[in-house]
C-alpha cells in the first residue's frame, strides 16, 4: 500500500475537468485508489464520487493506492495533483 499526501495548488481547485482526468488516469490501473479528505473516503475510480469532493486551493488530500501496479499509479496521479492539474 502506498499513501501520498497531496495539496491542491491550482486556483480553481478540484473542479469538473481535473476530476474527470483523475478518474481517467485511475482507470488505467488495476490497483485500488482511494481519495480521503476530512474523514471522507472516496473511490478514485468513481467520477460521481470524486465530484462530491469540494477541494479548493490549499486543501490537503490523502491518496491511497493498493494493488500490483500501485507504484506507477501513485506516481502518475500524485504528479498530476502536484502539477496543479496542468493549470498553473
Amino acid at each position, binding site marked *: 500500500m502506498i499513501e501520498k499526501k497531496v495539496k491542491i495548488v491550482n486556483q*480553481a481547485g478540484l473542479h*469538473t475537468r481535473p476530476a474527470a482526468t483523475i478518474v*481517467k488516469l485511475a482507470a488505467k490501473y488495476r490497483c485500488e485508489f482511494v481519495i480521503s479528505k476530512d474523514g471522507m473516503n472516496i473511490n478514485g475510480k*468513481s467520477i460521481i464520487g470524486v465530484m*462530491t469532493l469540494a477541494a479548493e486551493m490549499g486543501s490537503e488530500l490523502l491518496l491511497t493506492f493498493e494493488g500490483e501496479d500501485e507504484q506507477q499509479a501513485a506516481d502518475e496521479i500524485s504528479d498530476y495533483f502536484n502539477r496543479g492539474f496542468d493549470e498553473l
Partner: protein
Amino acid sequence: MKSFIQIYKEAKNKIVGIAAAPGIVITKAYLFNKEKIEINNGEITDIEEAKRNLEEAIAKSKKELNKIFSLAKEKMEATRAAIFEAQLMILDDPVLLSNINLRIEKERKQPEYIVNDEISKYQQLMILSHESYMAERASDIEDIKNRIIRNLQKKRWQSKIISDLIVISENLTPADTILFSRCNVQGFITDHGGLTSHAAIISRSLNIPAVVGTHNATKHIKDGDTLIVDGFHGYILVNPSQDQIDYFNNKIEKLSELQAGLKELKDKPATTTDGREITMLANVDVTGEIDLVITNGAQGIGLYRTEQVLEELGEFPSENEQARIYSNLSARVYPSPLTIRAFDIGGDKFKFFAFDEPNPFLGLRGIRLLLENITLFKTQIRAVLKASKNKNIEYMLPMVSTISEIRRAKQLIEECKKELIQEKEIFDKNIKIGIMIEVPSAALMTYELALEVDFLSIGTNDLIQYIMAVDRGNDLVSDLYQEFHPSVVRTLYHIVKEADRAHKTVSLCGEMAADTLAIPLLVGIGIHHLSISPSILPYTKRIIRSLSFEKTKKLAEACLTCSTEKEITEKLDKFFKDNSITRTRNII
C-alpha cells in the same frame, strides 16, 4: 387601426411578462415540462429483466448525451463542454453502476427507484458542502439522474420532437438551450428569470422573440395551444381569436418591412441629421451573440460580461482558459474594440461565498470583491493581457466607488504586466483601462476618477437603483425605479459634462439605452457611445439617424428643469410627436 395597448387591454386571453427579446411570432406551443418525475418503488420479480432495462436505459442516455456533447463542443468552447463529458463518464462509473446492480438484486425494487435513491445520495453530499459551485454541480447530476430515469420509464426524449414551435418552460438550463438552438425554436416563454436569464440571452442571440418572468405561463398554456408572442411588449395571447390573429399577422408583415429597411442601415453610421455621430457598440453575454454583433453592424463590443463565463462553467476558469476565450473574441471583432468587464460578482449575480451578506447590494461586490481576492483578480488580469496581442482589448472595472480602488487595481495591472514581460509574453502594454460609473459617489466624482483612467461607462441599471435607493426586483417598491426621474437625468448630465471636462469618452451600457424613449435625451445630454443588446441595435440606430442634435440638446436642457418623472416622459413623448419620429412600437 387599434394600438397594441388597446388590443392588450381588451384581451382576456393574455399573459404578461418581461419583454426579453424583440419580435412577434404566431405558432403552436410546446410545453417543455420539467415535470416532477414519478418514481415507482414497486417490487420486481424478474431481476435479470430489471438489469437489462437498466442497461438499455444507460445505453440510450449515452447516445443522447453524446449528441448534446458534440453540439456543445460546436456551440461552446470545448473546455466548457466538460460538464457534459463528466455526465457521460457518470454513465460508465463502475462504482455507481455496480452499487445500483447490487441493490437491485438485494432489494428487488424497480431500477428507477434504486437509481434515484443512489444518485440522490451523492447530490446530498454535494449540497451539504458549503461551496456555492457544489450546488451547481448537484444540479448537473440532477440532469443525468432524470435522464436515466426517463429512459427507464421509456418516455420519449422531449427535445427530439420540437421544431418550429414556441418553447414554454419554468426555466431553462444551459443544456436545454444548447439543444433548442438547433431545433429552429420560434420563441421562448419562461415562468422565471429576467432580462439576463439564460433563456433571455439565448433568444436575443438567436434573434427570436422571448417573454420571460411570466410567473405562471406553464400553468395557463397547454401543449399544442396556438400562441401569439410579442417580444416587444412582453405579452402572450393564448389561443387567439381570428381578429387577433389578423391584427398580428399584419404587424408581422410591417415588422419584416421595417427589418428589411433596417438591414440597409447596417454599414451606415448612427449620425444625427446635423452630423453628430454616436458610436454604436454591443453588449455581449454569450459567445453565440457575436454573429449578431457583426450582422447588425455594431462598431465593437462595449460590454463583455465575463461573469457569464463563470455561470456557464459553474466554476472559475483557469488563466489559460480565460485567455483563450478572450483572445477568440478579440479576433472575431478585430479591428473593432472589445471591452472586457472584470468579473462583476456579488449582489444578485453569482453567489460567491457560502455566507449570506445581510445587504448584498451594498456589500462585497464588483471591484470590492476582486480587491479582496487578489489571486482571482490577477488571474483575470493576466488572461486579459495575454489576449491583448491584437491591441483591440480594453479592460473595465465594475462598481468603483473611490479613487483608491482604481489606484489599487492599476497597481495590480502593472504588477501583472511586469510578470508577463519577465515571462516574455507579448501583450498590449498600453491597454486601455476604464471604469463603470454606477455608484452615486463615483458619479459625483466623475472628473477626478476620469483623470485616473482612459474611459468611462455608465451602468444605468445599478446607478438608478442606488440613486433611488430601490431594488428593481422588489415588487413592493419597483415603482420607484424611475429611469427618467429628474435626479437620474441630472446625474447623467453631470457625468457626461465632467467626462468631457477631463477629455475622456463616456458610454452608456444599461437597459436605459434599450428604451427608444430615452434615445433623444441621451443624445442630447452628449453621450459619446451607446452599448446595447445587438438585437435592438438597428432599431436604435434608426431613431438616432432621424434626430437633430441641436434639438435634442434643447430637449435635454428642458428636462433638467423638471421636478417629476412624469414631466420628463411627457416632454420626451412630445418630442417624438413634434419631430414626427415614430417609435418602433408605433411603426409596427
